[in-house]
């Protein structure tokens, strides 16, 4: 007997749940041949607002979790992603029309990237903290602290780019609101499903799918967002406008890259240090 297709509805990922867009809007996602693949939610500014509230709520717990624990949770995401490897390979092939070998390369690289950042979670502090020599009877110690709620505009590309910008933000104890690549909403939400089942507290990562030009300005001007990563903003005019809007509350801004990024290459630690603030403590040396 012929079986009916079980079609999947791709929603948003906010605060650990998968709500539809507040606006009720959806957009059609086609596969590489132009056939209907699925409908994805088209987020509005109010979804972005809700996501920031969820991220802010999650920040206290996530930032005060031990770095070791955050590393474990990241590793767990990699574990669960590994278990869903075939699903991601199939999704990538359907949306991109690429070969199985190529899709597997990207999915493997994405899993490895998470493991790479998971390892950094409890090591970055040692690398970027210092004991500073000062001319006085003080210990002078600088140590990094997470920036806060970070808005991330994910780069074009189905999975690897997304993972490469989100993992460093949460590894350092920040929480984030991610605008997925407009062309690839499906893998972003499937990645959200992975995160929702990986001991990652709800709200640490929030995924929005929809128009970058529509949502990003609201996040850039949002007074409760502490940083914004413009990696995925392709339009230079939009990037400039977002930088300007970000100045209102002195957000940290990571500017859009000037040359195309090779996501397969091993990254440096700059994506980790971008979302860290340095706290310096002066402590009198006892008598």
């Amino acid at each position, binding site marked *: 007997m012929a079986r009916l297709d079980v079609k999947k509805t791709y929603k948003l990922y906010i605060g650990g749940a998968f709500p539809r867009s507040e606006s009720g809007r959806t957009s059609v996602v086609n596969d590489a041949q132009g056939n209907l693949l699925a409908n994805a939610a088209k987020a509005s500014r109010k979804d972005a*607002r809700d996501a*920031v509230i969820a991220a*802010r709520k999650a920040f206290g717990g996530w930032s005060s979790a031990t770095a070791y624990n955050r590393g474990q949770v990241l590793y767990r995401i990699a574990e669960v992603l590994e278990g869903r490897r075939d699903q991601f390979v199939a999704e990538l092939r359907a949306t991109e029309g690429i070969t199985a070998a190529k899709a597997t390369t990207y999915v493997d690289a994405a899993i490895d990237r998470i493991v790479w950042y998971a390892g950094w979670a409890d090591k970055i502090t040692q690398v970027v903290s210092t004991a500073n020599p000062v001319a006085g009877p003080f210990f002078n110690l600088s140590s990094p602290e997470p920036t806060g709620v970070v808005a991330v505009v994910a780069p074009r590309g189905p999975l690897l780019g997304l993972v490469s910008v989100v993992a460093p933000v949460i590894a350092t104890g920040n929480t984030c609101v991610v605008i997925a690549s407009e062309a690839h909403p499906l893998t972003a939400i499937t990645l959200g499903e992975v995160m929702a089942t990986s001991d990652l507290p709800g709200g640490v990562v929030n995924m929005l799918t929809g128009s970058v030009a529509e949502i990003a300005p*609201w996040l850039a*001007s*949002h*007074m*409760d*967002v502490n940083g914004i990563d413009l990696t995925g903003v392709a339009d230079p005019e939009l990037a400039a406008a977002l930088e300007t*809007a970000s100045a*209102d509350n002195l957000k940290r801004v990571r500017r859009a890259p000037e040359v195309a990024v090779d996501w397969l290459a091993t990254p440096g630690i700059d994506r980790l240090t971008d979302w860290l603030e340095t706290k310096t403590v002066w402590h009198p040396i006892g008598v």
Partner: protein
Amino acid sequence: MQPYAGSVTTTSATTGSAGDFDDITSSESSLRRFLHGLPGVDQVGAEARAAGLGTRSIKTTAKNFAIDLAIRMVDLTTLEGQDTPGKVRALASKAMRPDPADATCPRAAAVCVYPDMVATAKQTLGSSGVKVAAVATAFPSGRAALDIKLADTRDAVEAGADEIDMVIDRGAFLSGRYLQVFDEIVAVREACATPDGGSAHLKVIFETGELQTYDNVRRASWLAMMAGAHFIKTSTGKVQPAATLPVTLIMLEAVRDFRDQTGQMIGVKPAGGIRSSKDAIKYLVMVNEIAGPDWLDPDWFRFGASTLLNDLLMQRTKMTTGRYSGPDYFTLD
């Protein structure tokens, strides 16, 4: 003159039907007959109506109006064992100038505190126009002898409270001793008298979360209105569920019907659990639709709240600046 200082009295009212309360309240049995003779509340209907009114879309200029009105209606409340004079002073300052960055922001209606903090609040508020409300009568349980409740009330009035929030004796109400509840409200109302011949305004708290049924809410509303309450208030905020839309709807119907019968206007105050601007606007829509636009005034409708004000201010800032604001920019209470 504040209109609600007006002629809300019980048995001495000039209108014909108000005089009828004498007959109703002359004995336990006649009072019970009256209260139980009130039409029953259609629970499903009330909840559906409240939910339906909650779906109205209030945008742009209407939203601006609603947010400013809601700020003017807030009874900024702190009722914790850990309240200190410093905290009450900070709260009073906030009530006078909710958004220090924006001079056009209206002030709150009142500050609501325990009786021992009334003098502190009064001192800070001075003649700013922000009222001081005090919870009295063995708040929040209401379980004390009548003379203790009256002393509690007089204490607060002497300290300068403009408004008294009393709790009814739910135990007496639920066991059907309506006349006892009625007499208590009348007695507290008398204790609200100030030396200059005026009277502190009396808000009667039902604690609807403990009244079990909507019928009981309607009965309590009529009981309190006949006993001379200026305001009827849903809850103390110490019991869950606190204020809900259907309960407030029933109380709004009661004050509407009461005015139709007697010509006297009574205020309504939902308290507890109203935390977002969206919720507040739902209540305002309901006030307008059920009781009527006459009640859209801080003299006739209040919100008992603490966290609500910050959300209203954030929404207000969003409307004026065009960008989302955050809790970092408003005081923690």
